[in-house]
């Protein structure tokens, strides 16, 4: 009896050792809450964008070198099989049922995920294509609900809908014609193929660029964190200075509802005043407010220019209870705060309850940017972009500087 018990313990130890991840001694320079550890899963597929993790732990990553499938075959947490596949050089990656949905600047596509296959061998199918090719805010990030409804972020190819984009003193076009085709969320049937933008319906408007867009299954609703406008100081120097530009325009976190209007380009939420004000292009004088009740206030007003690039409602079980159902947000980090110090470059946790913010946000993972010589984003060590949850509840984070992928796990009690 005693020997059998001993054999079981020894066997369990060997099993645990064989499958144990090797954590970086210093968490790879990331600063995490107590009990959390980071491990470098992979680097080498060029600069990365978003990622997703399958139920079997396989990782699908979009980036500079197109799409890649990553697998850890020996249980040390590091990807040892890396297979590039497909012909989409894009941004978003989402697993939905037996499909891998991906996107680029002009469309959303899908590949079949077959059991046992790492890289999909099946043909790419087009779900929606034909969005106009734009330079600014062109990445088509998207979310899918449980029925396969597809919500696509169509960013505005403009900063603030000025008659002359990003030119000092140029006033805003009124009404802003860009909103007819951009600056909103368009909805499609994500299970139908070969659609064009004309098959979609504008679900919500006034979202300048809702890169961080996510379906919240528990709330049965769509949420997004939106990139706010740039350059209030250089465009309207008589009203705003560099410090104002670096601190006032919120990155707005909203529940995105059918028919909602979130205020771009006519307004922005001023974090210093704690209220929504008219944009200087549309008669704003620093304090003038839009018509009461016309646009919702954000659930959370995050600091200016932090660049929210991914949103994830934590559905894993391995993190402490307070994280469950809360929101992780990957902030890519600022460029438009210069000459003021750059900021962002971190993963934040926002406690949530019933679809609303439940207390202040906390910095969850920091230390990505490093010293950042000359206050220049180009010199950031890493910049977080994408988030995903693995089958064991670990949080995966991708980086756009070197293409590094981390796995953040909880081992505390």
């Amino acid at each position, binding site marked *: 009896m005693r020997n059998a018990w001993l054999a079981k313990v020894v066997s369990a130890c060997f099993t645990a050792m064989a499958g144990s991840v090797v954590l970086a001694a210093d968490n790879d320079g990331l600063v995490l809450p107590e009990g959390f550890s980071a491990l470098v899963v992979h680097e080498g597929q060029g600069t990365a964008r978003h990622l997703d993790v399958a139920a079997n732990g396989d990782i699908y990553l979009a980036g500079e070198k197109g799409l890649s499938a990553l697998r850890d075959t020996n249980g040390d947490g590091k990807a040892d099989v890396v297979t590039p596949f497909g012909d989409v050089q894009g941004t978003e990656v989402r697993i939905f049922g037996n499909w891998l949905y991906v996107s680029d600047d002009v469309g959303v596509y899908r590949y079949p995920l077959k059991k046992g296959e790492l890289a999909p061998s099946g043909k790419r199918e087009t779900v929606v294509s034909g969005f106009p090719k734009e330079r600014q805010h062109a990445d088509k990030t998207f979310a899918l609900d449980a029925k396969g409804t597809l919500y696509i972020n169509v960013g505005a190819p403009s900063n603030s809908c000025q008659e002359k984009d990003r030119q000092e003193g140029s006033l805003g076009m009124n009404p802003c014609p860009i909103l007819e085709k951009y600056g909103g969320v368009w909805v499609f049937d994500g299970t139908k193929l070969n659609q064009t933008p004309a098959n979609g319906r504008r679900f919500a408007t006034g979202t300048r660029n809702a890169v961080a867009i996510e379906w919240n299954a528990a709330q049965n609703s769509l949420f997004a964190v939106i990139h706010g406008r740039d350059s209030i100081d250089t465009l309207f120097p008589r009203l705003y200075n560099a410090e104002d530009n670096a601190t006032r325009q919120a990155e707005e976190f909203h529940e995105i509802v059918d028919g909602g209007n979130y205020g771009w380009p006519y307004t922005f939420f001023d974090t210093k005043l704690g209220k929504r004000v008219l944009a200087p292009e549309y008669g704003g004088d620093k304090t003038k407010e839009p018509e009461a009740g016309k646009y919702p206030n954000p659930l959370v007003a995050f600091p200016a220019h932090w660049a929210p690039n991914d949103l994830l409602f934590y559905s894993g079980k391995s993190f402490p209870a307070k994280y469950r159902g809360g929101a992780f947000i990957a902030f890519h980090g600022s*460029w438009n705060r*210069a000459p003021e110090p750059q900021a962002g470059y971190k993963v934040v946790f926002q406690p949530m309850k019933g679809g609303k913010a439940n207390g202040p946000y906390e910095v969850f993972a920091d230390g990505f940017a490093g010293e950042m010589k*000359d206050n*220049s*984003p180009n*010199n950031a060590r890493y910049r977080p972009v994408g988030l995903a949850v693995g089958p064991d509840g670990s949080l995966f984070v991708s980086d756009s*500087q070197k293409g590094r992928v981390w796995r953040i796990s909880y081992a505390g009690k």
Partner: protein
Amino acid sequence: MTMRTWIPAALAACFFVAARAWADEPTPGQSLYNKHCLSCHQADGGGVPRMQPAIAGGTWVQGDARALALFVMSGGFDSAARKESNVDNVMPPFRQLTDEDLAAILTYIRAKFGNGASPVTVPDIAEARTSLP
């Protein structure tokens, strides 16, 4: 501290602060670069990945002074720069700046980011301005 020792100490401190301020004082060209150009092209001229191109060491910065002036006053999108830097944003025109301010900015960026390219003069800007549409 007596008054006799306090006064020289205060003078020395003032001199030290003034000397530091003098040493750190940006040139007019640098101040104007910080105001009009830095948020996109950054303090090191390195630009922003995927958004604005690096100007440090760029062909425009160290090339012909009048061509550079005309490009900065016209704005636009240089396809060669896109190939090099894969950037998204279009440069707004800066023709609203005076000849003197443009000459100071371009002289600064050529000295700092242009491998020692020659200064840009006010007549260079004036001549380039005549080619604007």
